[in-house]
């Protein structure tokens, strides 16, 4: 069962756009120019893969796009709204409303059940009533095949199951953009395919832009667009 979808958002076809992003990491002599003027845009309903060797700046770019980090230079627009220069509160609000994250290491909150993990972003956004939140969380967990394990704690789920809960949680607030950092990096082949299929199906169904960083060439091949990176630039 698919969860109820929102009405298509009005505005530009792209959900996410960045221009000339620069980012340095480290300090002093260890300071490294990780991103050297990267530009990128992601349209709704499309799945993008960012690939490249370790240390080329894929994850750094993803965290900048997800407003988890600030660029040294350049612009980021979310749903047509320039976000790179906003204060922390505005960027946090935009994350909660427009962006869903899936991390490599699942990052479930292990003291909470699968259902509570999925409800957590909804509770913060506060758009739905508690009953509606619960209903949507159940529907999302159903859609990732975990309808029977909604009341299990994070510690009682396997790695693949935790990643599926993380996907359901990322979709909880119906974000326009889904960012995934090596979402299948920690999973076996069967679970990798399952998670990727889920991500792409749910995103396509809901008209969301999906940007994923991956080392897996098979996964990258199955995406709509593949963007290889090297030394802080798209090639």
């Amino acid at each position, binding site marked *: 069962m698919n969860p109820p979808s929102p009405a298509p958002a009005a505005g530009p076809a792209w959900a996410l756009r960045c221009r000339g992003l620069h980012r340095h990491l480290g300090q002093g002599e260890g300071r490294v120019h990780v991103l050297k003027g990267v530009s990128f845009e992601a349209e709704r309903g499309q799945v993008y893969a960012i690939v490249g060797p370790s240390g080329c700046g894929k994850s750094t770019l993803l965290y900048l796009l997800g407003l*988890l980090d600030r660029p040294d230079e350049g612009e980021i627009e979310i749903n047509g709204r320039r976000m790179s220069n906003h204060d922390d509160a505005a960027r946090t609000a935009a994350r909660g*409303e427009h962006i869903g994250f899936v*991390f*490599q290491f699942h990052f479930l909150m292990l003291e909470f059940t699968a259902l509570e993990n999925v409800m957590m972003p909804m509770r*913060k956004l506060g758009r739905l009533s508690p009953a509606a939140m619960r209903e949507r969380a159940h529907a999302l967990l159903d859609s990732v095949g975990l309808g029977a394990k909604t009341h299990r704690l994070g510690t009682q789920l396997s790695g693949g199951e935790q990643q599926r809960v993380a996907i359901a*949680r990322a979709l909880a607030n119906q974000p326009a953009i889904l960012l995934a950092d090596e979402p299948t990096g920690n999973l076996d082949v069967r679970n990798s395919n399952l998670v990727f299929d889920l991500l792409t199906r749910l995103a396509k169904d809901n008209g969301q832009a999906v940007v994923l960083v991956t080392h897996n060439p098979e996964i990258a091949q199955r995406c709509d667009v593949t963007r290889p990176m090297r030394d802080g630039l798209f090639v």
Partner: protein
Amino acid sequence: MTSPNLRIAYRFLTAKKRAMVMSLSCTVLGVGLFIVTQATTSGFERFFTKTILGINGAIRIEDKIQDTMRSMAAAGGGDSHFGRRDGVKYIEGIEEPQALMAAVREFANVRGVSAVVRGNVQLQSAFKAEDAQVFGIRLEDHVRVSDLAEQVTNGSLEDFRNSPTGALVGRVLADRLQLGVGDSLVISARGASRRVQVAAIYETGYREVDKTNVYLHQPEARSLLKRPSGATFLQISLHDPARAPQDAARLEQVLRHSVKPWQEREKTWLAVFRALRISTMITVSVFTLIASLAMFNTLAMIVLEKTKDIAILRSMGYERRDVTRIFLWQAGIVLAVGAVAGALLGAMVTWLVSQVPLPINGIFKTDRFIVTWDVSHYAGAVLTAVVMVMVASLIPARRAARLEPGDIVRGTAQ
């Protein structure tokens, strides 16, 4: 539990059971010990105050003030003067006690006033002689300014009232002279002697008083001390003894007599109790400080262990202030449970302490440990714990809020 921050705080806290129990125990102990030490310290202080007020009243008026003023006519023959107050002289005793008593009774806070004639005497029983002080009183007046009625242990006040030559003798003095109710003794002063009968024996618990004070009816004392008029002092009781210093100042100003409130009269003992209170406050503050350090330690540990969770929350739209609140809620939960449990522990230990046998006789008389039941002790304990624990919790809470989600995720991913 509707607040998402409170819900998260509760889970974070219960996930660290051992650290939480440690913080909770310290808070419970801090609050409980605060209550017990306050209850015991102020218990003895209040009992001492009650004893003192029951013997000497709240205020004493002694000695008339005689001002000396050097005046000089201003140059130019005008009628204006300037003066210099160059000291205060006293005329011993009260010359017109009735007039003064009438004036004192006009003060709203005054409950009773008694004129007392005092003098040094020697007592002679069949066995022994002892020096003592005679206090000539009007019983009806004096029972309103003292606890004499409750202090009688042998005989009765009624016997004293009905016996013009009766005497009220202190317990220690009676024991030294081997006197019992109905026995007679000779009182000598200024070359004169007279025989009186022990109408009752009283015990205040204040050894110095019980060892020296003998109460006689005023006409008998006047005759013995050869003092037909006046009084040595006026003893006053108040509805609110705490206001004695203000009332004393007003009385002195209006009556032009030396007026001393009980707080000034007993300042040595009160200073001892104050020192004791401060000393116990310091001890208790150390306990509360330990409680706050334990809370700080617990939260700092949770912040370290939950950086990933903080990054997740921040990635989901939880603001910095939400993170701060989540950690402050944890302190709040420990405080709420700790305050209730600490108050219960404090009440229980206070009751147990009040059952401990502890015979004391010197500045007051008691057979048991004295405690005070006062809601302000509980409020003070909780308030101290709240301030110290919340201040200690602010540091890790703010540290958690300052964490950059990008840094955390990048650090974990690498």
